[in-house]
């Protein structure tokens, strides 16, 4: 029976629609996983020398022991976000003559096939084998490994259980994040230390191996709790998230933009009310920390703005870039309706430009905080801002008229490559590189400040000639609208 289940899963994966186009993406994902695995093995194998390198003079075992609980605390939070619930896979089997127990064991079993369960084993086991199998006796060693394994299992099922309890995991993520910050702060102010707790626990296990049974007990309990929860909730409607009362809203401040405002309000609702675009937009906020990596005092002193330009363009325009990448695929489900209805194409494109302009403006205002470092950053960011609203938006929308892949809004965005095509992924290059076509010559002939001014003027020109670009885009769109609509109908 289980082999049949897994065979179906396997076939489902390979026969999923639109797979042909994303095979490159699958390969990339495969490489990422492979890379992670190799990296973990390398780290695990060289753990001793790494610890000696990073924490010179400290006892290696103590540092190692201190790390373990930390790892699992972070691991748990990451799992809450990334680990997928393998629930819906069993829907087609619910009505068949298969016992519930079998279905539940299948769910539990398939939940184990996750990269999250492999990494800790690869990271922690080699060190334990190399260092401890000889030093502390076989029994201690086995119990030590058993503890780590129990923690893996515990995290695996606990994360799934909590995810099942509240499918809306945004709040959970926030709480978890705050929790982590609190622990970090406690650690920093030396009130409470996970590291020392972890060290104490694992030292105790080495000395009194039977303590490990406590962790085994924990893992078995959460497994049992999870199983019991599944057994009592194995119904179609309960496998999905609970429904809350939805209300109608409108955005009166958009009224002044006329029909474009109506369409923009529609798109804002699309972003806020669907899982995938919502998490995509949230992801954009995360990229605002990019500046920390790139903005360096010595770069600023030397006026090497070209180094700053890349993060500035990316931060002020990341919604344009990331959300725009899947344009008009976001609206694939209602695209026929949009075409058949009396929608003014000019307003349709105008709404997209408005969305990009508003998002870039908000992002620019936020990243202006980097201006506290130096006023020069503000110059770079404003140049990037005008470039983004004037030029990037046109490039993005042009690419939108040549992409035919639908996007399913109900799935999460992390690790979700559906709708991604090579052309769309390549789209970021012209957007991130084209400012340099303006910047470098001007910077070489005159100076970096003139180059920024040139970029600003270039962006403003794009903005002032927007009417022309909209006409051009409509022409391109009309050439391919049937192809786009056909592509969107094939989900």
């Amino acid at each position: 029976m289980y082999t049949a289940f897994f065979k179906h899963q396997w076939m489902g994966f390979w026969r999923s629609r639109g797979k042909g186009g994303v095979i490159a993406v699958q390969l990339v994902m495969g490489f990422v996983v492979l890379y992670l695995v190799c990296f973990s093995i390398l780290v695990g194998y060289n753990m001793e020398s790494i610890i000696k390198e990073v924490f010179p003079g400290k006892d290696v075992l103590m540092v190692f022991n201190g790390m373990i609980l930390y790892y699992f605390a972070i691991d748990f939070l990451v799992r809450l976000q990334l680990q997928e619930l393998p629930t819906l896979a069993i829907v087609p089997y619910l009505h068949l003559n298969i016992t519930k127990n079998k279905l539940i064991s299948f769910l539990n079993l398939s939940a184990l096939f996750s990269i999250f369960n492999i990494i800790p084993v690869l990271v922690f086991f080699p060190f334990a084998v190399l260092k401890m199998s000889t030093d502390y006796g076989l029994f201690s060693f086995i119990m030590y490994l058993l503890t780590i394994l129990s923690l893996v299992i515990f995290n695996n099922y606990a994360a799934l259980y909590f995810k099942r309890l509240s499918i809306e995991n945004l709040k959970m993520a926030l709480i978890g994040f705050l929790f982590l910050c609190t622990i970090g702060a406690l650690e920093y102010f030396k009130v409470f230390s996970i590291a020392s707790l972890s060290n104490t626990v694992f030292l105790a296990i080495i000395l009194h191996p039977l303590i490990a049974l406590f962790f085994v007990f924990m893992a078995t309990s959460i497994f049992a709790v999870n199983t019991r929860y599944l057994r009592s909730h194995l119904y179609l409607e309960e496998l999905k998230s609970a429904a809350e009362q939805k209300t109608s809203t409108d955005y009166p401040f958009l009224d002044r933009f006329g029909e474009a405002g109506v369409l923009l309000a529609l798109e804002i609702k699309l972003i806020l009310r669907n899982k995938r675009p919502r998490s995509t937009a949230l992801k954009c906020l995360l990229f605002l920390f990019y500046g920390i990596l790139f903005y360096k005092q010595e770069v600023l002193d030397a006026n090497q703005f070209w180094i700053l330009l890349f993060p500035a363009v990316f931060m002020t325009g990341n919604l344009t870039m990331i959300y725009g990448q899947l344009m008009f695929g976001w609206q694939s489900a209602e695209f026929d309706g949009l075409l058949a209805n009396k929608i003014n194409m000019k307003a349709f494109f105008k709404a997209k430009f408005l969305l990009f302009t508003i998002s870039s403006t908000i992002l620019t205002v936020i990243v202006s905080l980097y201006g506290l470092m130096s006023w020069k950053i503000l110059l770079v960011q404003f140049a990037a801002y005008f470039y983004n609203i004037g030029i990037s938006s046109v490039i993005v929308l042009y690419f939108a008229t040549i992409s035919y892949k639908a996007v399913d809004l109900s799935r999460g965005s992390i690790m979700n490559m559906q709708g991604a095509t090579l052309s769309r992924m390549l789209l970021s290059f012209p957007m991130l590189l084209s400012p340099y076509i303006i910047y470098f010559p001007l910077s070489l002939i005159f100076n970096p400040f003139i180059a920024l001014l040139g970029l600003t003027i270039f962006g403003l020109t794009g903005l002032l000639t927007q009417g022309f670009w909209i006409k051009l885009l409509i022409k391109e769109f009309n050439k391919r609208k049937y192809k786009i609509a056909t592509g969107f109908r094939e989900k």
Partner: protein
Amino acid sequence: MLEIKNLKKEYSGRIVVDIEHLIINAGETVGIIGNNGAGKTTLFRMLLDLIRPDGGVILSKGDVIVSNDQWKNYTASYLDEGFLINYLTAEEYFIFIGSLQQLGAREVFDYLKSYEEFFNGEILSKGKYIRDFSTGNQNKIGIVAALMQKPELLILDEPFANLDPTTQIRLKEHLKTFKMRHLTTLISSHDLNHITEVCERIILFEKGRVIKDIQTNVDTLKELEAYFSLQ
């Protein structure tokens, strides 16, 4: 109202629609019938400029529909869920569609009042997004949104499918009143009883071609039943 000339559409060598000449007169209620694969939906999509014909032209009030959008001013349609915006509430969707026709929110709600019976308390102020409604109720939303646009030409693809019996009867009564209002209506359906009851002219398609084009009379239902039972 509509004139179709030499319209052709092929999918990988298979002819889906092939119409030499077809005229739909203003004020007619026309039923389009045929088994699956007869090309009904493809024809409707071409009428709405959603699919590019491989050959031929469609004229709406004498204008070629591909080259200008004039026809959108007097045409309303509901083919499938792809016409709904599934992350809006029903009210928001009606207001959105209304705004495209320059109708304010109040006018929209006034209009919807006349459909309270049709909705049967299932649609408005339910606190649900359209994606969470059942297929039947989604159909109701789409049909009423199309009617709300006060069109001269109305195109509905299988409007009776998924509706409960009460709503089917109400929709039938409603469609019959269109003849008096001189509205041109194109309906496809698999239900021969409904279609012969509502439509004054019936066009039967087979593999993309017009097989029969008849004015409905007392014998029509029998004639159609005879055709379909021989298939």
